[in-house]
């Protein structure tokens, strides 16, 4: 059974077909890298998988369960978490509150109008633990507005990881990072246990190559090449897409 099974997924925006019959089968525990040049439809594919937009055709299954018609918010409860390429956090809140919100999203407590959230010891402890994992526990109380770009990237990952997903979708987690920060994030991703399946989008192939078990090359909404790291790198079509003929 695949962790994620996408078949014949199609999506058009007006006359523009951004996803053309994409098939994707990701095994449990796999690290899958999806590469492709700008405008290949990588983020759209993610938005379809998470349910933020609805496909015109095709189906999506999560661990054998069809979720094509499941709303985005419920897919999260089924064990799917994502990060965003364009950082999407809560700028008015502290780092700790950001991660607490991620935990709260899966808790029944989120409907409670009577308790004081700051005193929910269990949530706060778990949020701190999630921050410790990305090395941000010492600045947990800092307002998000006063953090660096690299720190925010790590908050994004901490929030997704705090939800203890079975499938983690990372949308360009290295975008805009310095070389040192990239190394930190790479180390961080390496610590994620294998019971989490990871699908990562990356525009720049070299950055995340050693992370991937298998690579899918997307171009103009279509899967061009798929295979192991070596196969994809060696394939002439990869060079064609990235370098032109």
């Amino acid at each position, binding site marked *: 059974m695949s962790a994620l099974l996408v078949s014949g997924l199609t999506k058009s925006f007006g006359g523009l077909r951004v996803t053309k019959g994409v098939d994707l089968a990701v095994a449990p525990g796999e690290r899958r890298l999806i590469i492709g040049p700008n405008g290949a439809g990588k983020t759209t594919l993610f938005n379809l998988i*998470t349910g*933020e937009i609805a496909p015109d055709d095709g189906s999506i299954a999560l661990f054998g369960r069809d979720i094509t018609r499941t709303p*985005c*918010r*419920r897919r*999260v*409860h089924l064990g799917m978490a*994502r990060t*965003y390429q364009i950082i*999407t*956090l*809560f*700028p*008015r*809140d502290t780092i700790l*509150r950001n991660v*607490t*919100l*991620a935990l*709260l*999203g*899966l*808790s029944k*407590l*989120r*409907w*409670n*109008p*009577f*308790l*004081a*959230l*700051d005193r*929910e010891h269990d949530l706060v402890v778990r949020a701190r633990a999630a921050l410790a994992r990305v090395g941000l526990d010492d600045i947990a109380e800092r307002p998000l507005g006063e953090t660096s770009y690299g720190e925010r990237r790590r908050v994004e990952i901490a*929030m997704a990881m705090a*939800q203890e997903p079975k499938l983690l979708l990372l949308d360009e987690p290295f975008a805009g990072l310095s070389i040192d920060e990239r190394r930190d994030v790479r180390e961080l991703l390496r610590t994620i246990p294998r019971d989490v399946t990871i699908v990562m989008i990356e525009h720049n192939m070299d950055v995340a190559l050693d992370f991937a078990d298998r690579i899918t090359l997307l171009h103009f909404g279509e899967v061009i090449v798929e295979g192991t790291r070596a196969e994809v790198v060696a394939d002439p079509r990869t060079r064609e897409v990235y370098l032109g003929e």
Partner: protein
Amino acid sequence: MSAAATRGAFLVVALAILATLPAWVGNTYYINIASQILLFAVFALALNVLVGYGGLVSLGHAGLFAVGGYTTALMLQAGQGHLAADLAAVAVTLAMSAVFAVLALRATGIGFLMITLALGQILWGIAYRWANLTNGDNGINVTTRPAPFGITLATATPFYYATLAVFLVALASMALLVRSPFGASLCGTRDQPRRMTALGYNVWLIRFLAFLFSGFWSGVAGILFVYYNQFISPQVAALQTSAEVLLMVISGGTATLAGPVVGAAIVVITKNVVSAYIVRWNLVLGLVFVVIITFMPEGLVPGSARLWRWTWRRRAAPVKTATAGERP
């Protein structure tokens, strides 16, 4: 003094002033103005739930306020008791809030504002035109005020205390809400609705429930209003009422608890006290708003807090410079 201690001291002083107000004001006229401030503060607090914490600006809340008031008046006119009238008013306002929410929450931002505005105008139209039900422009008189636990609210002082009690309950419920997980969820839907969905929240339902909560307190404020004036007319449901309460929230400071209360005080005092001396009191109110928005765009309460911190820091600063100067 720490921020929490300052706030605590401020709260104790404010409560002491409110609790003893009739004793040192003495004059019925001013006690009535205090009642008005408190009932409009309840209304402004209700709107602030949506505007401040939900990021949803409504221009139709006068409709909900009027539904509360009109239902009470109509039930009393039909010979029902006060308790039945008030419960019916709350129920009808909640039902109307649900209708408002379902229609208006199809959009956010300007779309939400325009839909609430249109719905508010429809209710105003009903109050004005459906004369068989609402008595049209002539309005409805309410001859008696209730007497909860045998205490009649017919005179100014008991009515003030009843309004104060309702106000404090409303304020406490808001204070509880903003610290709660649900309050955090609501603020999250204001700042990053897309992210909230991707974190597993039902953004629509959170907003819907917040709308009901806001509608509930708007209806309660409407009940207080109709008892205070012992009269209600279509003017109450007009756009001007919606705009006024929105200005209370914005001028006092959105997403704060004290802001809407201060805003209500400014508007009510200008309307009642300034109008006794200046015929064009609307002009004064407009000027007050312009000054607030120019110098404290975040509202009077957060703006004053900022000014206060700034003054303290300036007072503390010279000491630091002196020690720095002593170094060789």
